[in-house]
């Protein structure tokens, strides 16, 4: 356990000491602080717009972070031969991958919480300047950010998995983006081919599309922005299922990453 914490803290320190990441965080903070100004564009829906922009900014930041951190993790440690200085300690490859992921995960979670705390006064300010007929649903906003965090943990795990195979930045980065886009659209496509349109396609291609749908991570499920903006109610069962799904998927990705990394020859 102490070893795991030590590995986590090494990863975290590496992230925190990276200047570029700090610059990105600063930009997003600035963007969120400017939200009241942006919201003035919409005279009718200031509050809705403030919530939308804030949530989108947080979501975008977390996406960039999870992509960058995940895709530049394992292969870079191998290339810089950090692995040969750490895996020659009594450290198993499993502990190394888990430590790596938990460092990234802690960073993403902390950033999400931090940005949520920053966005609270910003949304309050925007909402009070042009009150809307819908009250602000803080719980829903928190849930939306929580779901985003889980989604980007999934993205990070995916990028980490690809980075255990890769020897450069490109494969994990672009493969993760591709899966991300596909996984965000899969639900719509699935419903489309499940409907009338599907009857006009070849049964084999419908089966393939459905198969891919069940394998791809379903990112659209984690989009809870609309209930946050309009204060719609959630189904607790659905939330629980979504969480469970996310957790199981992350675990599967990590197990695969460990399996692949355990076979890898290190310099």
């Amino acid at each position: 356990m102490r070893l795991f914490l030590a590995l986590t803290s090494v990863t975290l320190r590496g992230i925190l000491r990276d200047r570029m990441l700090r610059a990105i965080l600063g930009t997003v903070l600035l963007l969120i602080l400017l939200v009241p100004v942006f919201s003035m564009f919409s005279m009718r829906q200031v509050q809705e717009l403030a919530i939308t922009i804030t949530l989108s900014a947080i979501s975008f930041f977390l996406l960039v972070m999870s992509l960058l951190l995940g895709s530049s993790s394992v292969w870079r440690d191998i290339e810089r031969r950090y692995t040969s200085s750490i895996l020659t300690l009594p450290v198993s490859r499993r502990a190394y991958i888990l430590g790596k992921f938990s460092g990234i995960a802690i960073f993403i979670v902390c950033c999400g919480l931090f940005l949520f705390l920053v966005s609270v006064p910003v949304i309050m300010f925007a909402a009070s300047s042009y009150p809307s007929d819908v009250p602000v649903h803080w719980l829903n906003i928190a849930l939306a950010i929580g779901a985003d965090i889980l989604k980007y943990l999934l993205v990070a795990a995916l990028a980490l998995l690809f980075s255990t195979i890769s020897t450069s930045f490109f494969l994990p980065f672009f493969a993760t983006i591709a899966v991300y886009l596909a996984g965000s659209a899969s639900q719509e496509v699935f419903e489309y081919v499940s409907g009338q349109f599907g009857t006009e396609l070849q049964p084999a291609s419908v089966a393939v599309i459905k198969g891919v749908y069940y394998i791809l991570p379903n990112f659209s499920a984690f989009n809870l922005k609309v209930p946050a903006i309009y204060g719609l109610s959630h189904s607790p069962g659905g939330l629980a299922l979504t969480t469970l799904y996310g957790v199981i998927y992350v675990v599967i990705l990590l197990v695969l990453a460990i399996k692949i990394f355990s076979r890898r020859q290190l310099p």
Partner: protein
Amino acid sequence: MKSKVIILGLIFCYVLVVVPFSSYLKNRPVMLKLGYVPAGKVLRAIVGDQRYLTAEIYIVRVLFYFGELFGINRERVAVTPEYFNMYRTLENAVLLDPYNTDAYYFSQAAFTWELGRVREVNSMLKHGMKYRTWDYQLPFFVGFNSAFFLNDYQAAAEYMKRAAELSGNPLFTNLAARYFYEAGKTDFGIAFLETMAKSAHDRKLKRIYEVRIEALRAERFLAGAVDRFEKERGRMPESLRELVTSNLIEKIPLDPYGGRFYLDRSGKVRSTSKFAFRE
């Protein structure tokens, strides 16, 4: 060996979860599926150069959703379509890309009867006319809507004339004239829809028109029978059933929108579906 067991266990858990998960997602309210679209002007500032792409994505999303809806309705599964949300999405899409035809054609097809948002659809179409200056369909739509829904015949004539000029086809003025002098409202509607159904390329749009035509024809058929009944007996029928029992018609046609035809107090033929997909 141990790791194989772990992986198999995980896959098992995954399958256990993914089945209810996917059915939960499929049955989520539509608004959740379409998502929230920020006001067009703001969106335009945010997405910058990518606005055409963004507009296309939104439009495709609405079309996708609608296509799926049609699939469900064919099997007579009751769902309430979120017309307003679809409309809002398209409204924002044309702010991003005023040239996108799909948004206009789809709005005209789907939101006038169903949503009753004729004025909004007209203003969206007029917005489009500023950009698609060569497109005769847009003034044609506005002209039809003005006449059929708003009873504004002066405006209708004006737009129909414009459509005729742009297309070089006198059909449009004829169509309007027919409505004014010859036919009833239902016939005018059917004539319009038939024109549209013929020219529609998209299967979904065609289907919208065809369903509407089917409904209007059924309505016309019943209204004609009611007229004949009244002429023969000198009174209104008690209900539509009476038309069948008195052997005027063989049976009451089905409403393709899933409703049931009835006779309202003033003797007009109506349907419980109000000719829109409702619960």
